[in-house]
Structure formats: structure tokens, C-alpha cells
């Protein structure tokens, strides 16, 4: 029997299926596995970033620094690899470390100074974006052989289809995050804090450590998304991924996670990203529509999902009485 708490995720999956079916029905050439794989290829970095965001939102917070952190990662990677000639084997771990430290610093500020996550990460967003321009105001193109070969590698699948290395990374992140969320104490503590931070504290859970780790994880995911984005764009630029944190938040919400915290699934977020991808694909198949229609449809969907969540939680509280 289907449990009630899986309802939001089921709705997300159904919606995805419905959209894909509608696209297939309307456009020739839409219905193919490769279109589906392209969704993954084009949105791999968003999947990675949104997974980190899921943990933050489940814990009852928000992380606005994601897009800027991605830009900063592309920028640091590009300048070190391209202009300083550092080997990627050093650069990639380094940027991941920087992202994690950046996240844990924000987490520590949020927890110890009791600052609203919105404000603390807003500051982080400006800081990271600004740092990009300290490095350079121009695009730095990467032609390092490692980066170009990763970008061009096609992992062939049966039937002539292919995916990229980034897709593998994104899928590993999703699987790892599901494990983290449901089978580790860190994951369960995150849900507990999102449910009631006060209770978590009184239950003797390590609230400080968990909260800081949540933002550390989000920082790590942002940096990893930045690495994937670097493979995708093969350049570093201060204007990369502007507003991407909002796409990530949208994906998390469409995936059924409650913005108030305490409830949500990583897998839902994955489908949330896919839905955004399908909308984009449909609009590009349509040909005549401006790509901004993607935003309009996502906006409408968000409204629907938020109202739906509200109704669901309202029903829940009626049940309790």
C-alpha cells in the first residue's frame, strides 16, 4: 500500500511522466531515450546543487549562495588550471575543499550568531560573486586536455545512446545523498532539526554540528556542481549560473520538500530538476517560443505545489484533532 507521505513524490513523478508523454505526442523525435539522457546531461550540475539544497531546506534553512559558489568554482578552476598551470588533480579537490569551508563558515555563523539563513547566505552569495571579479572580469576559456576530454567523453549505452561523465557524477551524488538522508545519523538529525529544532536540542541531538554540516554539505555540492559546470561550459566566468540557487530551490519544492523543513526526499528533488528540464525541452521543440516561457511555467508549477503542500499540511493538522 502506498504510504501517505510518499504522495508528493508520486505526484511529481506522474507530472514528469505526463509532460514527457505530452511532448512525445506533440513533437516528432521527442520520444526517445536520448532526449531523456540529454535532460540529464544538460542538468547534471543543477541536480548536484539541488541535492545539497534539499538537505538545507529539510533542516529548515535556505542557501542562496549556490549560484555564486558555482561561478566562483569555475573561476578558481579556470585561473589555476589555465593561467597558473596547476594540475586538475590538485585543483578539483581544492575547489571542493573551498566550497565546503565556505559552507561551514556560513553554517557556523547561522548557528552561533543565530542569524537567519536567508541573510547569512545572501551575504555569502554577494561575497562569492564578488570574489569572481577579483580573479578576473573576463571569461577565462579552458583548453586543458583533462577538462576537454572529460567534457567530450561520451559514455555509450546500448542502443546508440550516450551520457556524459557529469551524469555519472550527478547520479552518484543522488544515490549517496539518499543513503546519507535515510541511513545515517547525520541525515536523520537533519530531519529532526527541520521538524523541531527546540525538540532536537532537548533530545540531546548534536544540533550545532548537524546544522554546520548541512551547510558544509551544501557548499560541497555547490562546488561539485561548479566542477561539473566547468566541464559543461569549459570556462570560468563571474556571470556563470546567475540565479541558479533559485532554480535549485524550485526543483526542491517541486520535488515535494516542505519549505518549512522536516519533510522531503532527495529523489523528489531529482525529479524536480527533470521536470524543469522537460519544460525547457518542450519549449525548445516548440521553436517559436522564447525560452523565458520556461520560467513562466516553472512559476505556475511552484504556485501549484506550494498550495498543494499547504492543503496537505492543513489536512494533516485536522487529522490530529
Amino acid at each position, binding site marked *: 500500500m502506498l504510504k501517505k507521505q510518499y504522495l508528493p513524490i508520486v505526484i511529481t513523478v506522474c507530472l514528469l511522466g505526463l509532460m514527457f508523454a505530452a511532448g512525445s505526442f506533440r513533437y516528432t523525435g521527442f520520444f526517445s531515450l536520448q532526449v531523456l539522457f540529454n535532460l540529464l546531461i544538460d542538468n547534471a550540475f543543477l541536480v548536484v546543487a539541488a541535492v545539497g539544497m534539499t538537505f538545507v531546506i529539510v533542516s529548515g534553512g535556505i542557501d542562496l549562495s549556490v549560484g555564486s559558489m558555482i561561478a566562483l568554482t569555475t573561476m578558481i578552476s579556470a585561473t589555476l588550471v589555465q593561467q597558473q598551470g596547476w594540475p586538475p588533480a590538485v585543483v578539483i579537490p581544492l575547489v571542493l575543499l573551498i566550497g565546503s569551508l565556505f559552507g561551514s563558515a556560513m553554517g557556523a555563523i547561522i548557528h552561533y550568531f543565530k542569524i537567519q539563513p536567508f541573510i547569512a547566505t545572501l551575504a555569502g552569495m554577494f561575497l562569492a560573486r564578488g570574489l569572481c571579479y577579483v580573479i578576473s572580469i573576463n571569461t577565462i576559456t579552458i583548453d586543458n586536455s583533462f577538462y576537454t576530454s572529460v567534457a567530450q567523453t561520451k559514455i555509450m549505452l546500448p542502443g546508440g545512446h550516450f551520457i556524459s561523465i557529469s551524469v555519472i557524477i550527478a547520479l552518484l551524488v543522488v544515490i549517496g545523498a539518499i*543513503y546519507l538522508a535515510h541511513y*545515517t*545519523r547525520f541525515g536523520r*538529525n537533519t530531519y529532526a532539526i527541520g*521538524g*523541531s529544532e527546540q*525538540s532536537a536540542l*532537548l533530545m540531546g541531538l548534536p544540533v550545532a554540528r548537524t546544522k554546520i554540516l548541512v551547510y558544509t554539505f551544501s557548499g560541497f555540492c555547490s562546488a561539485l556542481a561548479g566542477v561539473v559546470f566547468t566541464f559543461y561550459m569549459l570556462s570560468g566566468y563571474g556571470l556563470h549560473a546567475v540565479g541558479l540557487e533559485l532554480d535549485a530551490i524550485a526543483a526542491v519544492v517541486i520535488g515535494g520538500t516542505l519549505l518549512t523543513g*522536516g*519533510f522531503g526526499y532527495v529523489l523528489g528533488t531529482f525529479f524536480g530538476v527533470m521536470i524543469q528540464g522537460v519544460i525547457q525541452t518542450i519549449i525548445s521543440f516548440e521553436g517559436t517560443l522564447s525560452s523565458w516561457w520556461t520560467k513562466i511555467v516553472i512559476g505556475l508549477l511552484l504556485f501549484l505545489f506550494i498550495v498543494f503542500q499547504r492543503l496537505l499540511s492543513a489536512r494533516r493538522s485536522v487529522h490530529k484533532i
Partner: protein
Amino acid sequence: MKKEQGPILTMSGIHKRFPGVKALTDVSFRLFPGEVHALMGENGAGKSTLIKVLTGVYAIDSGEIELSGKTVHIGSPQEAQLAGISTVYQEVNLCPNLSVSENIFIGREPRRLGKIRWKQMHAEAKKLLEDRLQLHIDVTKPLHSYSVAVQQLIAIARSLNISAKVLILDEPTSSLDRNEVKQLFQVMNNLKAEGLAILFVTHFLDQVYEISDRITILRGGEFIGEYAASELSRIELVSKMIGKAFVELDQLPKVRGTASKELSDVTAEAVQLGRKGAIEPFDLRIHKGEVVGLAGLLGSGRTELARLLFGADRSDEGILSVHGATKAIGSPRQAIDHGIAFCSENRKTEGIIEELTVRENIVLALQASRGWFKTISRKKQDEIADEYIKAININPPNPEHLVKNLSGGNQQKVILARWLLTEPKLLILDEPTRGIDVGAKAEIQKLVLSLSDKGMSVLFISSELEEVLRVSDKIAVLRDRNVVKVMTDDELSQQQVMQAIAGG
């Protein structure tokens, strides 16, 4: 009781001071294994502080805490739990979004190589609840799908699992119905037999005598005494708690016959007023200077009735007339304009603004009724605040005190002052004495009577039948969202009203 074992917990010479307040002065406390020990005292007596000291929320200024004969320092809730002291609070401090078994085990989940073993955890939770608490529920469901009573039992299960030696139950019965209280007491008795030491805090005297072996009384942050429950009479207990003779309480005029009053002016009259799903159509007439009590069980529709009169909910049918004129009261704003005031039962969420001072809280409603552009001068505000602080005896008598630092009874008085200031014709009091101590209760009851003597009509809602009987001229009895009977004068006896509530 196995007293020969010696106490498991000894607190001696405990001092705790907050800025400007001595919360605990030289308090001692002993708890033996296998006993239920009631901690009694009025609001502000220091019960909560003592418990927070025990659970590591507050650090003590001086004194000693011994657990199992060893001096312990309790620095945080976590340390308290590890030492074997667990607390279950009135508002269950668990995570509503997590499953029952997680709430029991979180932080100590059974794991293999860091991986949580869900099956084992669910099985252990189920066994724990069934074996020790006789609770048969689906442990995989989220906590919020169960009632507060069950949630409390789950919180107790969590404490037991952390191998608690001392279990503190802080006002556990406040939001439970009779059967749930019975179930809780059954569990407490079982745990007591297993040798657990239970510290029980409550406002209900009946429950103290039903379950406790010994009683410790605090007053004004000082230790008054430790007594065997069987050797302390109720009257002695209450007089020790409030520090005055019990007679004072009983001196309230009992039933005041309506005959003694002129019932010419009708303040408010409801004719077949009702709202689907909330309350069936009812008739109710409230005269000038009359106290109308609403009696009935929790959930019988008392609050719903009051909310209709105040316009907090809209009626679907019937007529409400105020001062003889039919009024469509569609919002609290309109009700206030017609001279109706409403003190909600949830003073924390619907009444008091904790971050504001006593003065600011008092002038709030008056300011609202004047409109926000006609400000009340600071001088005027101070005068008003002083006047009401004196008139209804708010303690401490400092208008600039933050309301969150006041005791429950005094917060209630601040809300009362706020509404009295608007000079209402009809004052609706929903559970004005809930969760406040005996002394403050008596003061609020007196206040209600003196207001009605001055011509104010009062609708008085309370779960305590005695209290309703004491202050009311007329009682409307509710059962299952129906006004089943309106009783006056000689009908007003506890037995009559009980029968009406019970029905049949």
C-alpha cells in the same frame, strides 16, 4: 517504597539567581527510587527553575546535586540524559515529522558500519512500547498522527530507553482527558514498581493524591517542606503552597442568586445562532451584570460558542442582538466596536505579546480601537498601566517589565487589563484560570464577581466545574456541540450540572 536504599537524587543548598530575581534560595530536594514524588508550588514558586536546573538548561549558582551518591555537574540536556535524568514536558518535545520509532531512538539508532538498521529499530520500538507501556501502535507512522497522550507515552518510552533513573514529568496531564490520564497513571505505577524514581509536577490536586507517595512544596523560590502524601491533608497542602490560610479561598460568595439582580437590560442575545461543524443552533441571553458560565467537557463546543459571539468565526444561521439591536458580527473588530471583549484560552499564542512590556500589552486593544493614528501619549499610557497594575494586582508592579518574564497568572491579568481598558459591556473569558496557581485563580474569580457587580456582563468558560459554579449566576451546559441546558438559581448545584454534562 524501598526507602532503605537511600535517595537516588539529592539536591541540597541550591541557589539560583536571575537578574533581579531570586529564583531558588537554599532549596533541597530528595528523590527515592520507586516513588512518585510530586513537586508542588504556585506559579513562580521555582518549580520550573528547579526542573531546568536538573535537566541542565540552567546552571546553579551554588549548591550540590548528587546522583546515586556521586556529585554531578549537569551542563546540558544531553549531559542530564546521559546521567540518567530524563524529562517529559507538557508540550511534547519530540519531532512530529519523524516516525514513532525514530523519536524513541534518534541519536542512538541501532547501526551497522554507520548504517541505520531500520527493521531492528522498528522492532525494538514496538517491543518497548508494548512490553513496558502497553501501547500497541504502528511505530512506522509519523508522530503527528497520534494524540498528545500517546506522544507523551512515546516520550516516556524514549526516556526509558536511555536507561533513565530519574523521570521528570512536567505537567503531563494538562491536555489529557480522563481516560488518557488513567492510562498515564497506570504506566507511572508500573514504572514505579520497576524502581524508577518519578518527579511529577501538576496543578491538579486530585492527581497529586491519586498517584504520589511524597510531596515537596516550594514557595517563592524557597523550600517549604517534604511530606508523605498520606499525612498531608489537601487544605494543609494548599495553605502551604499559597502561604495563607485556606479559609480565604472559601470566602468567595458561592452561588449568587439571579433573583437579587435586576435583569431588565439584555446585553446580548443569541437566537438559534449556530455554525455547521462547530456548534448547533442555540439560544442564550446574557443580562447586564450577569455572569454566565459555560460548562461542558473539552471539545463540547464552549470555545466555538464564544468565538461565534465574538465574530472570530461567522455564524451560518440565527440572529445575534447586542443591546436589543440585531447585529451581524462578522469580525472581532465589529465585536469590539459593540463592546464585546474576548480573552482567549491560548494566552501564549492568541493574547500576550511576550516581547512587549506590561504597559504596551495593556494599551494594545485601546490603541487598536482608537485607530493607529490617534496615539495615546506616553504619560497617559503610564497612568493607565499604573492604574490597572494596582487595580488587579499585577506582580511585579512594574509597567516596563517584559511580559514574557511574568508568571502565567500575571500574564492572564495583563490580558484582562487590556480588555477592561476598552470598557466592554460583555467580557468573554475562555479558561482564564488554566495553568495558573490557586492564589491567582481566586484573585481572578474575585475580579470577575466585582466586575459583574459594577454592571459588566461576563461569559465565563472553565473546565473546572467548581469554579464555574462559584462565579456564575447562570450556567449553560454544553454537550457534543449542543447547548443542552441553561440553568439558573436553585438548579445550580454541582450534581445537577454534572448530570446535564453527562447526559442520559
